[in-house]
């Protein structure tokens, strides 16, 4: 087994008395597309938050490329090449759509906290941001304040910001929620394209997307992973059928 991109060991998280994540061991290999599915409130977003240091784990370790993330801040983790999106849209509402994406490019292009460079002078920044906007079909809306986009457009922008930095581990929390079928298909393709050769970790309730994208699927129920494996295997797993997929799977396909 090659060194995992992300490795979770004995991860636990409680809020007060409620134990939400109850010991998760999971290792996600390099260039793997890994989907995490599970019922509402199972702890999927919490797991994302633990990995990206939005929350402190109660116990256990998270390793990114073999390096322990304990005590690091979100921005430090991001700099190590991990980027995430949010289930509840989290963009810069007052800035233009273009600036939203450009900000996402700054650190990865090495600008750091510099105050001796002018952003407008960098073709690489402008072209990079426009390329992303093109991919997420928002080029036309480039100069609008992001807060005035429709819901689905904001979701698209959320993904754009996440992938802009070119991180090699990308985590998407319900990327297609609120999108229509055609957009969902489009975004699925896009995700497929931009995560080529990268590690993708994704939470999604749309089984079409999950089975279309994922190499590996983990099923999270009540803070525990009850199954991990290839899509076919997971789909057939009776435990999973019972706990999560139920009749829905049939209806979907």
């Amino acid at each position, binding site marked *: 087994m090659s060194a995992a991109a992300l490795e979770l060991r004995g991860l636990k998280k409680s809020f007060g008395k409620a134990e939400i994540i109850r010991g998760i061991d999971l290792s996600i290999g390099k260039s793997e597309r890994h989907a995490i599915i*599970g*019922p*509402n*409130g199972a702890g999927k977003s919490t797991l994302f938050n633990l990995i990206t240091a939005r929350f402190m784990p109660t116990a256990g370790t998270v390793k990114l490329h073999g390096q322990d993330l304990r005590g690091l801040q979100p921005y430090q983790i991001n700099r190590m090449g991990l980027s995430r999106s949010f289930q509840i849209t989290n963009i810069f509402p007052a800035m233009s759509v273009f600036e939203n994406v450009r900000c996402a490019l700054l650190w990865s292009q090495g600008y750091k906290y510099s105050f001796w460079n002018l952003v407008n002078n960098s073709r690489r920044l402008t072209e990079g941001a426009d390329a992303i906007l093109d991919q997420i079909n928002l080029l036309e809306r480039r100069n609008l304040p992001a807060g*005035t986009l429709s819901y689905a457009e904001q979701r698209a922008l959320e993904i754009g910001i996440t992938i802009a930095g070119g991180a090699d581990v990308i985590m998407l929390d319900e990327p297609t929620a609120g999108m229509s*079928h055609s*957009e969902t298909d489009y975004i699925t393709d896009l995700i497929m394209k931009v995560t080529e050769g990268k590690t993708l970790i994704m939470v999604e*309730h749309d089984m079409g997307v999950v089975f279309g994208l994922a190499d590996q699927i983990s099923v999270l129920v009540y803070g525990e992973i009850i199954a991990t494996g290839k899509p076919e295997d997971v789909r057939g797993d009776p435990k999973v059928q019972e706990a999560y997929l139920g009749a829905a799977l049939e*209806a979907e396909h």
Partner: protein
Amino acid sequence: MIEVTDMHAYYGKSHILQGVTLNVQEGEIVALLGRNGVGRSTTCKAIMGEVEPKGSVKFRGTEIAGRKAYEIANMGIGYVPENRDIFPGLTTRQNLNLGLKPGQKDGAGRWSMQMMFDMFENLDRRADVEASVLSGGEQQMLTMCRTLMGDPDFVMIDEPTEGLSPQMVQKVAEVLKEIAARGISTLLVEQKLSIAMDIAHRVYVMGHGQVVFEGTPAELKEREDVRKEWLEV
């Protein structure tokens, strides 16, 4: 029940709704379909008075266009917004409590807090935590329940299944049927065609800020052209 005629709405200068006409009858579930960004949510907001409507909106024969949102709500119209708007700082229970109309007692109407907890066991478990930490799906359930607490006679539900697990989607579909069964009319904005087609009595398809198709789900199924052009399926 509700009768919208030639309704227009603007955000600043952009003309979003360009003459929407639709109606929902007593006890009916009507689905409002369309691509992203065509103005379905705006239609709901305009009916609710959150966005200023131009044109006519009649509720049980009374003109409500131009009234304040709380007046409209107190006449018996409920709205479940798409972006959830959970009140942070308040617990799940308190959020539900705020759904009650001024002066309304819990359990006095068609729904009670206990029923909500029975229906969505997730909410029961998280009844007393601050609602802003609920999972995405839980927030979705909470918003719907919160509006129902006010015992509306007509509800507009904006994408209720978004972010819900397949099982929960089924659950919500059942709840929607239950809502109709209790004599409440529903305007459903839904992305998941399968559900809309399954439970709606009638559907409207929107495009370019107008209604471009009206009919039963069965009729829509037959109209390949409409689906191609306006729904991109």
